[in-house]
């Protein structure tokens, strides 16, 4: 069925002005090879939904530095110094959500839930223009589900159908993002035959995954390095 594709083949999926969900927490669980491909395209004005904008010159950090990002929705951009500068110059829009609200909104976006009430951030600057509602004596804020045109995620292993399992805390936002976009590209460390992943252990069922690509990054000591 051809869901296993080369890195070059994913370029045609990505278009200017798209909203793209990108997995990862810092660099852990980030689709580094896929994000590098964005640099080989002329797309721009991207709206990115991701916890951070990459880190240390890797992942989304590179994409941002190439000027391809118009807006970022996430929970923690303070580590991205250039993003802070760009924001203060008005060159980058930022929408800040508490990390749990971000994760839940993406989950809801993928699960046919239009919106939800969370108690997180009630009474703070982040919710001052949002709808507050009391439910059973507790105050909650309304948040809408979040979806993307494309999700770029990272998993440890895929089988050839697209079933995915993850590695330790590199799981993070990847499973929920896999559910919440029209097209899902999963970068993986290893591709195995169908039947090799235990049905009880699969985290992301294959029906969520459109493309699988082999990662070109490996861990060496305390960093990721690219192998060609």
């Amino acid at each position: 069925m051809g869901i296993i594709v080369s890195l070059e083949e994913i370029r045609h999926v990505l278009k200017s002005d798209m909203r793209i969900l990108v997995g990862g927490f810092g660099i852990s669980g980030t689709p580094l090879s896929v994000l590098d491909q964005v640099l080989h395209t002329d797309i721009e004005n991207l709206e990115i939904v991701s916890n951070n904008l990459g880190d240390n010159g890797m992942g989304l950090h590179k994409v941002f530095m190439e000027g391809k990002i118009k807006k970022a929705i996430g929970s923690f951009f303070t580590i991205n110094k250039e993003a802070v500068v760009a924001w203060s110059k008005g060159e980058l829009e930022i929408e800040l959500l508490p990390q749990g609200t971000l994760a839940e909104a993406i989950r809801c976006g993928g699960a046919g839930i239009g919106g939800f009430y969370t108690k997180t951030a009630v009474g703070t600057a982040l919710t001052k223009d949002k709808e507050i509602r009391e439910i059973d004596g507790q105050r909650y804020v309304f948040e809408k589900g979040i979806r993307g045109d494309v999700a770029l995620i990272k998993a440890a292993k895929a089988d050839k159908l697209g079933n995915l399992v993850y590695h330790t805390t590199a799981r993070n936002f990847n499973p929920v993002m896999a559910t919440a976009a029209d097209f899902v590209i999963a970068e993986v460390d290893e591709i195995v035959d169908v039947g090799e992943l235990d049905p009880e252990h699969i985290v992301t069922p294959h029906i969520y995954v459109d493309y699988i690509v082999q990662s070109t990054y490996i861990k060496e000591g305390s960093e990721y390095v690219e192998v060609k």
Partner: protein
Amino acid sequence: MKLNKREIIAKRIAQELEEGDVVNLGVGIPTLVSSFLEGKKVYLQSENGLIGMGPPPEENSVDIDLIDAGKTPVSITKGASFFDSADSFGMIRGGHLNVAILGILQIDKSGEIANWAVPNQPILGVGGAMDLVAGAKKVIVASTLFAKDGSSKLVDQLTYESSGERKVDLFVSEYATFMFTSEGVKVVDLYGDLTIEALIEKVGLPLLYEVEIAK
């Protein structure tokens, strides 16, 4: 061995934890708490998707994917498990953590805290702080009492951005441990080199303190 300020705070907080507690440690002083548990077994949760966080790994067994919420490599203990970010914050918001230990920038006399937005700087990062404030069964603040400019972090009213309506349970500083009651801020424990009078003077707020006479 003489403890520094940060260690004094961490050690005092370790006393508050109970065997079997599920605990989330914020960055900074809270991470030091693990060193003072003296064999008490607690389960450390990391909001990026782990329960059963262990000590920093040996250098040759670092896995840079396996990190804590401060993005530092960690190890895991026996019985640990991994889950995604949505499930992790479900755990946090749903009241399944016994204790969250958090740093602050300010705390007001009601126990409401400000711990995410530095004044006069762009507000571009919040992370999981507000989820922990809203969701943990008990929130303990771990912080030095005075900022670098000498001002008290314990204030009448927050001037920094609030982290949520929820009042914390305890504020452990290097001089004293504070509780927040309807009568006012209560000093539950005084252990630094300031008398209660000096403390009240420096903080600039009325503080309740009951001396235990029959000791």
